């Protein structure tokens, strides 16, 4: 039990500290209050989308669509308020429901129609953004609602509101994964789908639900993104899926499924966003930034694959000497 959930928080934590130090040493603007609060607001969106990525990765899947889903959902959100006159709270609920629906679409394709997750969500990545461009002649929708920005920039007890959203959503996800039968089933399905089926779990339904959760996470990210700029645009969220996947993987989630810890995903999200921020502050061009995010994903996956070898080697050396000395005592 312990191993499943507290699985090596040290690695992601070290990575975060290392990145933090590197960026802080290369640019003095990094630690300025303005940058730090901007940084946090940036992390909030990535980390919420990364919750969805983690659920999907835990069942051994992958979701490439949240960036495009966010673009579609911000446009939908903006249009429904601005052109249809839907009240803000209702529009938020509507967007979350739409996000769930987009997730359901992915889930049905993957779980029931057995399209490989990579292909199904790659198609969704293309299609969702395509649909987003169909609204408002493909133009962004500005000035959605006067109260909208306060959702993102507002504070409570001196702390920014997104902090509360992040804590609440991560707390909820942690509880679901650790303390519910559904959460346990997710790990089982990710660990061995065939054994899960023979143990009476409804594997397809569980896989589908994880995609629905990813859709809901994307929808919450979409609302925050729209609130941040008080606009919706089919150009939002480009590359966000990679940042979210990178967050989960840097947090130690195994792409083969069944292993991962949601709290580590938060650390991974921070790491990724600090890297991006540090590159921005050091005026590294966007093209090079994309290359670096790609490299980080590869390194994190490599560490995941080599991890077992490395730890067993270290432990083995330590324990086998202990055993030998024990034997000599006899």
């Amino acid at each position: 039990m312990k191993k499943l959930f507290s699985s090596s928080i040290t690695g992601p934590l070290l990575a975060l500290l290392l990145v933090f130090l590197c960026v802080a040493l290369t640019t003095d603007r990094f630690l300025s209050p303005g940058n730090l609060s901007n940084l946090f607001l940036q992390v909030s969106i990535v980390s919420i989308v990364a919750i969805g990525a983690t659920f999907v990765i835990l069942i051994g899947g992958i979701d490439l669509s949240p960036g495009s889903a966010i673009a579609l959902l911000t446009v939908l959100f903006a249009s429904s308020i601005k052109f249809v006159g839907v009240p803000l709270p209702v529009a938020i609920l509507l967007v979350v429901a739409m996000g769930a629906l987009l997730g359901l679409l992915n889930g049905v394709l993957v779980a029931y129609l057995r399209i490989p997750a990579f292909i199904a969500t790659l198609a969704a990545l293309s299609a969702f953004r395509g649909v987003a461009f169909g609204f408002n002649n493909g133009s962004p929708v500005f000035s959605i609602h006067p109260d909208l920005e306060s959702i993102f920039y507002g504070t409570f007890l001196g702390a920014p509101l997104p902090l509360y959203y992040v804590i609440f959503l991560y707390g909820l996800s942690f509880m679901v994964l650790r303390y519910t039968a559904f959460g346990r089933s997710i790990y089982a399905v990710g660990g061995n789908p065939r054994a899960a089926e023979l143990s009476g779990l409804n594997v397809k339904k569980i896989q589908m639900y994880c995609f629905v959760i990813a859709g809901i996470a994307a929808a919450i990210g979409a609302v925050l993104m729209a609130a941040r700029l008080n606009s919706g645009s089919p150009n939002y969220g480009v590359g966000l899926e990679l940042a979210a996947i990178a967050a989960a993987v840097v947090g130690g989630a195994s792409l083969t499924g069944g292993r991962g810890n949601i709290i580590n995903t938060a650390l991974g999200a921070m790491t990724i966003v600090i890297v991006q921020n540090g590159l921005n502050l050091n005026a590294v061009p966007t093209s090079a930034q994309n290359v670096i995010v790609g490299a980080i994903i590869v390194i994190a996956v490599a560490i995941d694959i080599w991890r077992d070898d490395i730890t067993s080697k270290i432990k083995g050396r330590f324990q086998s000497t202990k055993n030998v000395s024990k034997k000599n005592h006899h």
Partner: protein
Amino acid sequence: MFPGVVANNEVSLTLKPGEIHGLLGENGCGKSTLIKTLCGVHQPDHGKILRDGKEVSLTSPFSARNEGIATVFQEFSVVPTLSVAENIFLGVLPKKNGFIDWTKMYSDAKKVLAKINVRIDPEAIVGNLSVGDQQLVEISKAIAQNASLIILDEPTAALGLEEIQQLHRVIKDLKKQNAAIVYISHRLDEVVELVDCITILKDGCVTSDAQMTDIDISSIVNTMVGKVGEHYPKENNTQDEVVLEVRNISTSHGVKDVSFEVLKGEVFGLGGVLGSGRTEIAEALFGVKKLTSGLIKIKGKSVSFSNPQDAIKNNLGYVPENRKFDGLFFNFTGIENTSVADLKNVSKWSILDLQKEREEIRKLITKLKITPESESRFVSLLSGGNQQKIIIARWLFADAEILIFDEPTQGIDVGSKIAVYKLINELTSAGCSVILISSDHDELIAMSDRIGIVSHGTVVDILPPNQLDKVDLVKASTDEKKERIA
């Protein structure tokens, strides 16, 4: 090298050309490590490996191959999508002007196959061959590399009777051609029949070397596990009540018109050769495959399962043949592996009570004498016997009353086998019923109260074990072969 264990300690082994050397020992005794050292996967911390009197250092599987050492592992390394010839010469495909010389490759492959007197078409796709023939392709690969030391790790685990006989003939041929053979198997009967000498390992050390070991089952068992008492501790716990009634069931995947009934506390055996349809019958009973016709009644009540979930709700449990692929969650400890089939048992409104889960399963771990390490360790680090018991514990935890055991003792050591038999007794004496599928005919005959002989996906005959012996089961299998040819 290995977490927490000295896998091999001061092991000495002498292998001679023209000799079949049996290597025995319980699971986790260090056999696999020893083999992996011989084929270059692991390196010894100290000690020497001499080949023809000269010291060699086997730093990789490649260098071992260059020394003429070939290993046929339990899990085959054939490429199922390629032809037999391509597999045999994989990595050393004969070439002409930089292109593959297909004519030469096929004729060379034919020669290699002729060396061990097997008739396999070199152009056939390996994935379409029987498991036994795939194994022979693997051996041919070793011969093509001019290996003079061939290590066979549990080569018969997945083979039917005839295929085993064919394999033994091939091994004896190799022996005549002066190869040194290391033979590893848990099936003592066949080991005794085949090998020239035996080395037994225990806890990483040689407990009995080639000179000391008599080639005799009971003395081998005694050396391997100490005094075991009765090898098959069968109890008769059958009661009169019919708990499972199967009437004329068929499925689209090979089950044809199967009927039998199972009594309370009974062990109902399903015998027959590999591929006769035993596992398919089990899968039909457990809701894995849908019935196309027929009827299943549990305690007189007609049931219909569209998935394993329904079967589990009706107190069925299934211990699958392949526990690695179908049974275990390697990302879980023993506790999570046990509770997974009945999480409702330890949750309220779908919220898990982790404390209760731990306590309840600890009781089962103690009861089934599973190692306490299973509580906190991933199951991948447990022995085969412990892994098997974890899966049995899963069904006890889920209150299963009818348990299907598909090859429950395959690949586990004698001590664990006896533990499984005792568990079967405990289950039946507590009123559970067991459907036992086994290719080990001694085991099937000894442990079953009645045996259904399966051939062509149907139960052709049901007999009490005292009216049946190994010969009948073999005969059933040969009948099938004949029919298949005809």
